[in-house]
């Protein structure tokens, strides 16, 4: 319960967003361009496949100011990047290791089990392949 309170406190002060549902082909440059519309970006950390070390469809965007991150949540969340609706969420802060997917095959968990075909995310889910 202590850690949950701490976690919520971190989220409330955070300037970092988790960004999901990216295409594997979306570049840091594209992310930087889009998310700069709500303020100056401190850092973009691309999410990587743990095995292949290639982009696996998520990233972290850290702003200098909390207000800029809030505006990203208001106006960039739920809009399109590379023709895909992307989702943003508050993140407690990047820590080394969190840039890797946690799925068994190295990518994100959601790409392990999904049944649909998604050309921007490696085709079928890993278990289907």
């Amino acid at each position, binding site marked *: 319960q202590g850690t949950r309170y701490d976690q919520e406190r971190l989220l409330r002060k955070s300037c970092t967003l988790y960004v999901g549902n990216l295409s594997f082909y979306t570049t840091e440059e594209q992310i930087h361009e889009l998310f700069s519309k709500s303020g100056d970006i401190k850092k973009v950390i691309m999410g990587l496949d743990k095995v292949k070390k290639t982009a696996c469809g998520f990233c972290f965007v850290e702003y200098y100011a909390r207000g800029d991150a809030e*505006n990203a949540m*208001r106006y960039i969340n739920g809009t399109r990047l590379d023709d895909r609706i992307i989702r943003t969420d508050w993140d407690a802060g990047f820590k080394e290791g969190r840039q890797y997917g946690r799925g068994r095959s190295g990518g994100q968990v959601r790409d392990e089990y999904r049944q649909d075909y998604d050309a921007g995310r490696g085709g079928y889910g890993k278990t289907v392949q």
Partner: protein
Amino acid sequence: MSRRRHSDDSDAGQPHKRRRTSEPSEIEERLESLICRVGEKSNSSLESNLEGLAGVLEADLPNYKSKILRILCTVARLLPEKLTVYTTLVGLLNARNYNFGGEFVEAMIRQLKECLKVNMYNEAVHLVRFLSDLVNCHVIAAPSMVAMFENFVSVTQEEDVPQVRCDWYMFAFLSSLPWVGKELYEKKDAEMDRLLSQTESYLKRRQKIHVPMLQVWTADKPHPQEEYLDCLWSQIQKLKKDRWQERHILRPYLAFDSVLCEALQHNLPPFTPPPHTEDSVYPMPRVIFRMFDYTDDPEGPVMPGSHSVERFVIEENLHCIIKSHWKERKTCAAQLLSYPGNNKIPLNYHIVEVIFAELFQLPSPPHIEVMYTTLLIELCKLQPGSLPQVLAQATEMLYMRLDTMNTTCVDRFINWFSHHLSNFQFRWSWEDWSDCLTQDLEKPKPKFVREVLEKCMRLSYHQRIIDIVPASFSVLSPANPVCIYKYGDESNRSLPGYTVALCLTIAIKNKASNDEIFSILKDVPNPNQDDDDGEGFSFNPLKIEVFVQTLLHLAAKSFSHSFSALAKFHEVFKTLAESDEGKLHVLRVVYEVWKNHPQMIAVLVDKMIRTQIVDCAAVANWIFSSELAHDFTRFYIWEILHSTIRKMNKHVLKIHKELEETKARLARQHKRRDSDDDDDDDDRSTDREDGPLEEQIERLQEKVESAQSEQKNLFLVIFQRFIMLLTEHLVRCETGGIDVFTPWYKSCIERLQQIFLQHHQIIQQYMVTLENLLFTAELDHHILAVFQQFCALQA
């Protein structure tokens, strides 16, 4: 007060929505909720809801009077789009409880005075309008309202006050008349006539030098861009001619006339406008943005004319809705679309016009630009059969009028359009714009298309852009954003520094340290060896060239790679760029390497400023240097300059804040020492820090002064360079007998205006210096006019 009524996916707020301090009782929360919700979509009629609510509140008055007063005052201030709903409610309450009505009026006057004292002028207008509508609800006696307006108008007789002060009081008076003009004129026609004639003479004599600076288009066709008071005056004159008949405003109180006219009215206490002080900051003047008229939607309901009071009320209400809901785009879109009168007015056109009015507003939009993009997308989602067509029509119209559109507004148009397209697979009928292909590339239309395509590429990738435009548009397509490495090819081996570049490449790939890099660079000859600069460390452009070219080339893969490179070899950068010429040269080399990738240049410049490899003045000088003349009118250059200025401004604010915080800590410490209280054990341990705190304050004071001086210097450099550049052009044109007004000139003079407008608060501090040093009477009148227009903004 929480106005959040819908659970929202795009909620940016905190996980906890309940207040943590005193938990309000359930009944108070319920009252707040009932009052906020009245007027929203409901199964019952508005009248029966109001009647019911009035009954509930009347019953709760004995126990919750102050809370109810507070909530009603707040909705009057913050929900102006529901003005008449709440004035009716207050009217009903007054009819049932005369004393409550009186207390409410007193509370409103107190709130009005408070708002004026703290420069909350926009909200004060809503309060004035609310009070005036209370006349219609028989809460306030008409003569006392007229008396208040007489005091407002008499502000125009004050001496030595800024025009913007008189403007506000005039606006507060005129903008209430659509609601209450009829009633006031019926009761006090002589007084009203006098007020209106005083208004007319004020409007005739007030100066309007500032207007050109605030206009979105420089042309008056098809719609004149009117100054806001002039437009409002025309609307009120027309209203008077129509015998004050106003049919657009929803007036729920009409249904309760029999009840309300039995009520006793209150007299407003005499209201003296608070005097002008040094701290008073009045709203800036505005120009009314118009892009549509009744000819643009021939099938639908007729759009009210530009001088009709209906147009004013609709626009006011739509702006108020955006102001209330801008943080929640889905709610905002829904609220805009449920504006009453949907079948009598072409609502989609009004909404699009109001949104673009805000997006293009000068000096700045009321809200962050990206909000408008996503708001329009939400509106398209809610009205897929109609709104996208209106938006396409608007885009076409804006494109057609690019030749006379203010450069700053074109910037915003570019950003909006490219971002919008990226949400709709970049689908657009580009062939419709083929006319721009035959024009000089520097003309506004082809320039606009080029910049849009460049921005579209940043949101996608190069090949995508090649694919989405017709082949004929290739001349406008952006360059492939690849790095240019001058030492890359064997054929370049005769270039000075080539071998060192090879050496460096290998060293860096082998994870060389800064020291190793220094020793490799030691062997680079200095082409400036013969120039005696007298300084200890001489500037060696070749060293800089070889190092920066090689490093940026090796790190070209992504922004992250480049940032790591800057960080790893920070020491080398700092040393090479120690002098002013060094800084300038670093920037030049960055440009040479990355001129195909403006986005990369921008992020590198940003990083180099933040890590103090270059300073803001160096960036300003680089932008105005001859090497960049070719790119001078490109959008990315001005993004870089304004971003640089913003960083400088934020830096000054940050240190200032640190200084204030440290001063406050010292003050608290002194207070603790002076008081006899010793129950704060923790704080006592910090008492010993007094000396260090004072030292800290002294250091911070110096830091603030040095930062402010750097900030002022930055602006002076920028203005100086503008003046030089523009004067050169003007002299050349005059001696050559050519027309001054080339596309380059228009762009440059508007960029100068943009500096003034975007950073007006800071620049106000330098007025004396600017007047005496730079914008003197000897200056060409074209350039001086910009300065004079700026001075007129807050005069």
